[in-house]
C-alpha cells in the first residue's frame, strides 16, 4: 500500500498497459460465472436454470479466450507465452532456486495453468450441455446424445469439478506467492491492466485493447450458441411405461 498512501507522487511509478480490456473483462466475468455455477449447483434443484445460464457464459467466455489467444493483443496470444516442456521445466527449476527471469505477461508455468484452466472449463461446460441428472433436469443439447453417453458425460462433469477446484486453488496460491515473495500485485494488474514500467522491457506495453474485434467475436459466439440451443429438440419422457 506504500505507493498509494504516498499521494504526492502518484506518477512516481509509471505504468504500462499489459492486459487488454477484453482479457480483463473475460477474467473477472469467468470468475463470477464459475462461482455462480458452483453456488447454483449447491443451492438445489430449483436453481438449475441459473446453473445452465452460468454454463453458457463459461462456454462463450472460454471459446472467446481461445480465439483471443490467436487474434488478441501481444500478451494474450498463446504463441507469445506458451512454451515447450523444456523451457517450462527450466523456468520451474530456476524458480525453485529463486532466480527465475521476469515476464511481463504470463510466465511459462503460468501458461500451463492458463491452458489447463481453459481446457478443463471448456470441457466442463461442453459436458454440461449434454448432461442429465436422472431426475428431471437435462442439458440443452441432451437430445443429441444417447442416454448412455449423456450419463457418462454427466459423471465426468461431476468428477471434473474437483480437478477444476484444485486448479483454481493452485492458481490463487501462485498469485498469492507472487505477492508475498516478489511483491508483484497481479490482482491489481488484472483489474487495471497495468504493470510498473520499470519491470518491463521497452516493447512490452500494448497500445490498443482491440475491444471492437473482441465485441464482434463475443456477439458471434453468443449467436452461435443461442442458435444451437434453440434448435435442439425438447427431450420429453416416453409415456408408454
Amino acid at each position, binding site marked *: 500500500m506504500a505507493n498509494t498512501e504516498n499521494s504526492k507522487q502518484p506518477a512516481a511509478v509509471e505504468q504500462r498497459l499489459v492486459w487488454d480490456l477484453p482479457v480483463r473483462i473475460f477474467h473477472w466475468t469467468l470468475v463470477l460465472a464459475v462461482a455462480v455455477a458452483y453456488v447454483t449447483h449447491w443451492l438445489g*434443484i430449483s436453481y438449475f436454470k441459473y446453473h445452465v445460464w452460468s454454463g453458457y457464459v463459461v462456454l462463450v467466455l472460454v471459446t472467446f479466450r481461445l480465439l483471443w489467444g490467436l487474434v488478441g493483443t501481444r500478451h494474450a496470444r498463446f504463441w507469445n507465452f506458451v512454451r515447450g516442456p523444456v523451457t517450462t521445466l527450466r523456468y520451474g527449476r530456476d524458480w525453485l532456486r529463486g532466480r527465475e527471469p521476469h515476464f511481463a505477461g504470463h510466465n511459462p508455468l503460468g501458461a500451463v495453468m492458463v491452458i489447463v484452466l481453459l481446457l478443463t472449463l471448456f470441457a466442463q461446460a461442453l459436458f454440461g450441455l449434454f448432461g442429465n441428472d436422472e*431426475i428431471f433436469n437435462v442439458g440443452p443439447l441432451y437430445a443429441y446424445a444417447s442416454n448412455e453417453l449423456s450419463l457418462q458425460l454427466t459423471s465426468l462433469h461431476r*468428477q471434473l469439478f474437483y480437478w477444476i477446484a484444485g486448479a483454481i486453488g493452485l492458481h490463487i496460491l501462485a498469485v498469492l506467492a507472487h505477492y508475498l515473495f516478489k511483491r508483484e500485485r497481479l490482482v491489481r494488474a488484472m483489474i487495471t491492466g497495468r504493470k510498473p514500467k520499470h519491470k518491463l522491457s521497452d516493447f512490452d506495453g500494448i497500445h490498443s485493447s482491440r475491444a471492437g474485434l473482441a465485441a464482434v467475436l463475443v456477439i458471434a459466439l453468443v449467436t452461435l450458441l443461442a442458435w444451437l440451443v434453440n434448435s435442439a429438440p425438447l427431450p420429453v*419422457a416416453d409415456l408408454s411405461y
Partner: protein
Amino acid sequence: MGKTLYTGRRAAPVFFLAGLIATAAVQRVYAQTAAPAPSPSKQAIEARKAAFVLIGQNFKPVGDTLQGRTPYDAEQIRKRTARVAFLAELLPETFPDVSNVGEPGTRTKPEAWSNRADFDKKLKEFREHSAALAQVAVRESSTSDAFKAAATAVAQDCKTCHDNYRTK
C-alpha cells in the same frame, strides 16, 4: 429259490453299481430343479435398482410438466405420482447391511451404511414428500404453486440423496 444269482457275496457289486446310478440320477435331478439361491446382497441390489428404474420412469413425466416441457395432464400426473409414492415404500427394505461390502454391482456409497441414521431419514423424507405429492395431484388440475412445491420437494430429495450417497 435254489441257486439264485443275486444272493450272498456275488450280489454285492450289483447293489453297489445300482447305488451309484441312483445317486448320480438324484444329483442330476436335484441340480436341474434347485439352482443355488442368489446371495441376499444380489437380491437386495436387484430389488432397489428395479424400484429406482420405475421411480425414474414415472417421475420423468411429472418433471416434464413441472418444467413446462409438457402441458398438465391431470390423469397422467395422478397416475405417475401415485406410482412414485407406492414405489418409494419399497426402498427401505432394499438396503440391508449385507448389500454393502465389496459389491461391484451397486452405485450406493458405503456412507449409506456408515451414516445410516441420516440415510434412513432421507429415505423417510422421500416417502413423505412422494405421498404428499400424490395427495396434491388428486385435487390439482394445473401446474399450481402447490403442485410445483410438492414436485420440487420430491426432486430435491432425489438430488440430495444422489449427491450424498451415490457414486459420481
